[in-house]
């Protein structure tokens, strides 16, 4: 147990430590970084990305991948904006958010059924449905705006209750979405580490054939992973739409699926599955957002952030490979020593 806890947490501590170092560097070198306003914004953006990564962490820990979350964000944004403006815009915000979660979950369910029942590969399935969902979003937006061609103008929303989802809470500088994200991350951590569903997710991510032979319902666990991934993408979409006070069908082009995967990888969730939990996704999202935000405070070309993100993803993966090798070596040594002692 000791070894497990330590290796599991070392990875988190390393990322979290790097985040702290980055924040220190940015606060010392840029005047406009360390203040309530900017921190509120940073954690707003991190929460949005974090919600997507949180959902993805279930698919990825289960050894899968979901490239459709960007598409889900896009189509759900349009759907929730329509829903939120129904009946003279009197729909409560909570209900709208719930609607978005259900929509996202339904899209995730489609992915899950295609992967586990029709037996298509995850990569191709979610690549295709991602494009499909974005397309649906664009079509719906076009119908809303009629004559448009090419440019999709965001449709404004006038529903106070719904828009309050995208605002700060009380007098603090912290957005509602940040609180929701932290609370849900904690809840999902419990689900992942303490429930049978979580245990089975690790099992299929680590060795799905063995898991199946042990009586784990691999198809159900996989499908549920996609549903969770979609549901969180849907929630993220609602929160973002409320924050922007408008739904934009161009959200599908923003590459959220890759940013989400990047956040997971940087946080320490292995692409091959079987490793990591929602806390890793959380740290990863803060890490990436800190860099994006911090770099803006310097007067350098904004495109540099892409280059730096790429480098960080490679570095994180390289670190994990090396880290894995070192811990494996230590374990071997320990087990040999143990055997000799016996």
């Amino acid at each position: 147990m000791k070894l497990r806890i330590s290796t599991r947490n070392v990875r988190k501590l390393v990322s979290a430590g790097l985040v702290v170092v980055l924040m220190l560097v940015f606060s010392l070198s840029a005047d406009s970084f360390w203040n309530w306003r900017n921190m509120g914004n940073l954690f707003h953006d991190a929460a949005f990305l974090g919600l997507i990564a949180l959902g993805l962490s279930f698919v990825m820990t289960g050894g899968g991948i979901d490239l459709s979350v960007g598409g889900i964000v896009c189509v759900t944004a349009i759907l929730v904006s329509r829903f939120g403006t129904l009946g003279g815009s009197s729909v409560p915000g909570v209900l709208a958010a719930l609607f978005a979660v259900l929509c996202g979950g339904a899209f995730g369910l489609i992915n899950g059924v295609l992967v586990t029942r029709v037996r298509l590969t995850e990569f191709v399935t979610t690549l295709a449905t991602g494009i499909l969902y974005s397309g649906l979003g664009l079509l719906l937006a076009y119908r809303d705006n009629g004559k448009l061609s090419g440019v999709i103008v965001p449709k404004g929303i006038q529903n106070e209750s719904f828009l309050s989802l995208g605002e700060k809470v009380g007098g603090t500088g912290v957005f509602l979405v940040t609180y929701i994200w932290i609370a849900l991350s904690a809840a999902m951590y419990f689900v992942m580490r303490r429930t049978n569903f979580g245990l089975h997710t690790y099992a299929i991510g680590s060795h799905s054939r063995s898991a199946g032979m042990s009586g784990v319902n691999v198809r159900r666990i996989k499908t549920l992973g996609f549903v969770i991934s979609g549901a969180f993408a849907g929630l993220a979409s609602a929160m973002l739409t409320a924050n922007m006070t408008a739904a934009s069908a161009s959200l599908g082009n923003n590459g959220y699926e890759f940013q989400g995967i990047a956040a997971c990888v940087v946080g320490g969730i292995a692409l091959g599955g079987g490793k990591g939990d929602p806390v890793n996704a959380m740290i990863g999202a803060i890490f990436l957002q800190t860099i994006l935000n911090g770099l803006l405070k310097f007067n350098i070309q904004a495109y540099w952030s892409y280059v730096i993100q790429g480098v960080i993803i490679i570095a994180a993966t390289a670190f994990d490979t090396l880290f894995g090798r070192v811990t494996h070596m230590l374990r071997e040594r320990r087990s040999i020593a143990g055997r000799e002692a016996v």
Partner: protein
Amino acid sequence: MRPTLKKPERTPDGGAERTVTFEDRAGKSLLRTEGVYKQFNGVTVLRDVALDVRYGEVHALMGENGAGKSTIIKIITGVYEKDAGRIMIDGEPVEINDSHDARRAGISVIYQELSLVPALTVAENIFLGQEPGRYGVTGRSEMRERVSALIDRYGFRIDPDAVVDSLGMSQRQMVEILKALSTDAKLVIMDEPTSSLSTAESERLFETIDLLRQKGVGILYVSHRLEEVYRLSDRLTVMRGGEVVGVLDHDEIVPKTVTTMMIGREIRDANARRGYKIYEDNVLEVSHLRYGKLLRDVSFKAYGGEILGIGGLVGSGRTELVKCIYGALRRSGGDVTYRGAPVSKSIGRNIRAGFGFVPEDRRVEGLFPALSIGRNITVASHDKLSRVSVMNKGAEQRWAEEAIKNYDIRPRDRGYRAANLSGGNQQKVVLGRWLAREPDVLLLDEPTVGVDVGVRAELYEYVRFLASRGSIIIMVSSDLFELTHIADRILVMHGGVFFEEFTGAAATQAAVLLAASGQHTDEGVALI
């Protein structure tokens, strides 16, 4: 829904689990089969097989490849359906049609390829799919308690919280056994459990098996290793050609008796090659070759014109030896030279230098199932069939057609998909790929596994012909007949080194079999 398994009941005081005890039944009949017959495509593979395993005994099952050991086990565990006969547990006839029936009957198999999840702990693995707890929240403390109780009961030394990934093979098998016992297995079947274990690890497994026996569990133990069987088993059933040849008590387990029973009467083959020409200039020399823990120090010379057989059990390092020579594995030490020059570590260069390699598992490493027969044959000869990397279509077709004709590959259609060929023809395709190049060094790893008798004879003929032209042939084989009748010289491996060399009349099947399990013929009895 996942299949519901019998969950161990809890004692009224809410403490540890009930575990069924078998000690009091020791010596009573546990599993009995009577008159089991099985045919595949009209070939009888099991004939009137009677097995009898008792509580609290380790019952070994031995026999050559193809003797029917795996088939009878698959019938007992419900993988195959028997054509005739009865299976009885505790004296009651039972119908076992699938793995669930087997589990319900208390039969559990520890497969060579383990069924554990590396990322989870020992306890999590044991209860995977049947976790205790409420509302989907894993009952960790109950899980721990029950696993600890199980571990204590059998006196195993293993940490329930250790991650399986960090365990050695013998400990993983221990987990696998615990998993079986957690569902109240009374008969544990082990199929070659030591093939991937080191000596020390094997010893730990034997201790585990001893503990199980003391607790009254019955163990059916399949093995090729005599010394192991002698060390462990209370009784031994020997099979040959689908029949039970005899049942021996522990004291009757004498190497000579067992090998004679396994092989039957030895027939000397009149067609064996006598007097072959050695081509001294065509020489491959291996000196002090090492590969991890599998090859410790292997040295030999092979000459053109000679068929060199490599014997030994699975896991003795045979496959690694030929792969290291060919360049498919990177050796950790030692030298390989061909005609005095070092052999490259690049497969491509070795092929151009005249090497060829027929791997053990043709479906994984040899064949391209989706490609045509023609492409499968020409794939290793692009150097001869292309100019500046552009294939000469005509030459490629002629090359393929000639090989199909020479090696009698059916159907005679170079466009035919290799996946649809019979096993024998697939092997001819893989062999033909190399034979067509007339390699100077041909490495064969189990060239006739899954190949019927008729095709076998043809393959031997091609290999002999190649040898008579001056090529070096190195043939790894588990088939004793093949080794003693086709090879001119046999090197038997055991524990990563050459254990014994045989030539001429000394190369009997019994001698090779004994050497493979680490015993010299003349001291066979004395050693154990």
